């Protein structure tokens, strides 16, 4: 027991100290780490919907977008510049504190999740997939076009000059100086995201073991049997949608503050698909697997950037590095799935014999 605690402590210290070490190689690497954590947060949220409740959601990025635009609108000069009456209400400019905006973004995303969930509860499997996909596209079209007749989202140009986070007087936008040390802004974000991810993992783990989590998994395995056992499948599915969407909303507002800029381009269908791929590739419904999948798929493209350079030379520069990267990611997705059909780290079977490959044909 004592041993386990020591390992845990070492891991925690290593994770916290990681950016301080990595930044020796450049701030870009810390940025990659922070982005990977953000994707982990998203993957954890989607895992609730897809992994636990077994509802295939191909429009998850819509909730991410709702959170991001929520924060962007309430903490950037865009609204005050466009609407004089808002400027009159907030003479110093609209700079909502995160304690208001993040819960608001999360709440709005949850509401969107429940709103989407309500009409589609009757749908199963792939019908649900296409409806959620359509919902994601609808949100994106609105973001792209809501600049006319009233300019709300500023269209494809997106919103910029978004305030960085300020928590307990610490402005995340500029380096924090403690003693003689200067801690970079990305490192602060890294710690924030790390804290969120750890919190989410604990939350998800507790959920998984709770009555709710077991109800979700029962629905995933067999909805009719779950219903027969007295589970209120409708409310449970709505709860899964709402919970997953909340994660999306929170990650969205984090993303907006981190980037300082949001535009519809960041919320394309491809993004949704990549998040689904993270969950499935890692191991659906199993937290270590999901985290592994998210870290792998979000960091892989960045790491490949360094591999792709030499490869580019091998082909006499005929192939662009970004093209090579895409090629390798596609190949990785196919090969990993073929080699490990249940994901890189599938959930352990609970007292159930694994289906032997000989009988399944």
């Amino acid at each position, binding site marked *: 027991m004592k041993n386990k605690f020591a390992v845990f402590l070492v891991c925690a210290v290593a994770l916290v100290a990681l950016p301080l070490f990595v930044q020796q190689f450049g701030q870009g690497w810390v940025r990659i780490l922070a982005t990977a954590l953000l994707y982990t947060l998203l993957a954890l949220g989607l895992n609730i919907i897809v992994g636990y409740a077994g509802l295939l959601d191909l429009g998850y990025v819509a909730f991410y977008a709702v959170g991001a635009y929520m924060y962007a609108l309430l903490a950037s000069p865009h609204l005050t510049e466009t609407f004089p009456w808002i400027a009159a209400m907030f003479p110093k400019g609209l700079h909502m504190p995160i304690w208001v905006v993040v819960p608001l973004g999360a709440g709005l995303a949850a509401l969107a999740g429940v709103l989407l969930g309500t009409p*589609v509860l009757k749908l199963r499997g792939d*019908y649900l*997939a*296409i409806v959620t996909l359509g919902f994601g596209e609808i949100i994106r079209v609105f973001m792209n076009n809501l600049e006319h007749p009233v300019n709300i989202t500023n269209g494809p140009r997106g919103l910029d000059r978004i305030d960085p986070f300020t928590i307990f007087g610490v402005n995340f936008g500029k380096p924090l100086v403690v003693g003689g040390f200067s801690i970079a802004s990305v490192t602060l974000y890294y710690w924030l995201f790390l804290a969120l991810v750890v919190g989410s993992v604990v939350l998800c783990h507790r959920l998984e073991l709770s009555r709710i989590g077991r109800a979700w998994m029962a629905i995933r395995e067999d909805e009719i049997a779950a219903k027969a056992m007295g589970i209120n499948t409708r409310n449970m599915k709505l709860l899964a949608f709402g919970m997953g969407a909340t994660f999306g909303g929170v990650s969205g507002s984090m993303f907006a503050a981190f980037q300082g800029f949001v535009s519809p381009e960041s919320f394309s269908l491809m993004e949704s698909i990549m998040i*689904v791929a993270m969950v499935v590739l890692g191991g659906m419904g199993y937290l270590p697997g999901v985290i592994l999948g998210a870290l792998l798929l979000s960091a892989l493209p960045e790491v490949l950037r360094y591999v792709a350079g030499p490869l580019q030379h091998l082909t006499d520069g005929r192939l662009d590095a970004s*093209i090579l990267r*895409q090629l390798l990611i596609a190949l990785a997705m196919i090969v990993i799935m073929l080699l490990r059909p249940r994901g890189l780290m599938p959930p352990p079977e609970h007292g159930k014999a694994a289906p032997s490959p000989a009988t399944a044909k």
Partner: protein
Amino acid sequence: MDYFLELFFGGLTRGSIYALIALGYTMVYGIIGLINFAHGEVLMIGALVSWTFTTAMAGSGMPGWVLLLLSVPLAVLVCCALNFSIEKIAYRPLRSAPRLSPLITAIGMSLLLQTLAMIIWKPNPKPFPTLLPPDPIDLGGPVITITQCLILGLTVVILSALMWLVNRTKLGRAMRATAENPRVAGLMGVKPDFVISATFVIGAALAAVAGIMWAANYGTVQHTMGFLPGLKAFTAAVLGGIGNLAGAVVGALVLGLVEALGAGYLGELTGGVFGSHYADVFAFATLILVLTLRPQGLLGERVADRA
């Protein structure tokens, strides 16, 4: 009225192309229950092969329609071979895996094909040569292009052929049997692997034709061109009731018309508040509405939940 008819024909053309693609989705789904995300990319490859052939042969002095006609079997052949290999490499090994695993290889395949196409054909959009006389035919008011006529006619022919294949031939019966229950079909002497391969090949042939139609009608080809028609055709297949052939056609025509009419009238009806870029919202809102009222799709049967 003329405006309406023109939109109507435009929508019908679009819907016919969607129908050809949607059939590929729905047949594959009906048999192995997989959303073949790479289907749109097969269409793109078909269009690009046809583009390569027609531009390479442009100087040969053959009339445009002959070139177009010759490029069709070539594209069909390439796409059939491609889809056959995709199934063999990426989907067959995962047949007994969890349901979402082949979905991920399908997404990977789609990404892979797009990237390969970008490497082979370069990323820039290429104008598809005008091979058919572009002059519109006047129907005493509304006008329709020869390309549109051809697409509509060809779609009817292909659909009839497919209906005949599925309902009247031995292969068709084997396909329906496999869709119903692969194991029992196997006991009855059907080779499921062969049937599944055949389904992918037929779907690819339809997609190749659809790709050439799309390119001829809208005039450009590019490595990303498969995404949108693929997405819409999948939507159409679900709208009609996935796994149901007639449903896919009905869903596709409905979707094409809704889009065309929506884009044409939305601005007018809302006084310019919502422009034609909201056509997609309109299409997806229709989908959500239809599925809310009829969760099994327009023509889908109410499948009893499996125990």
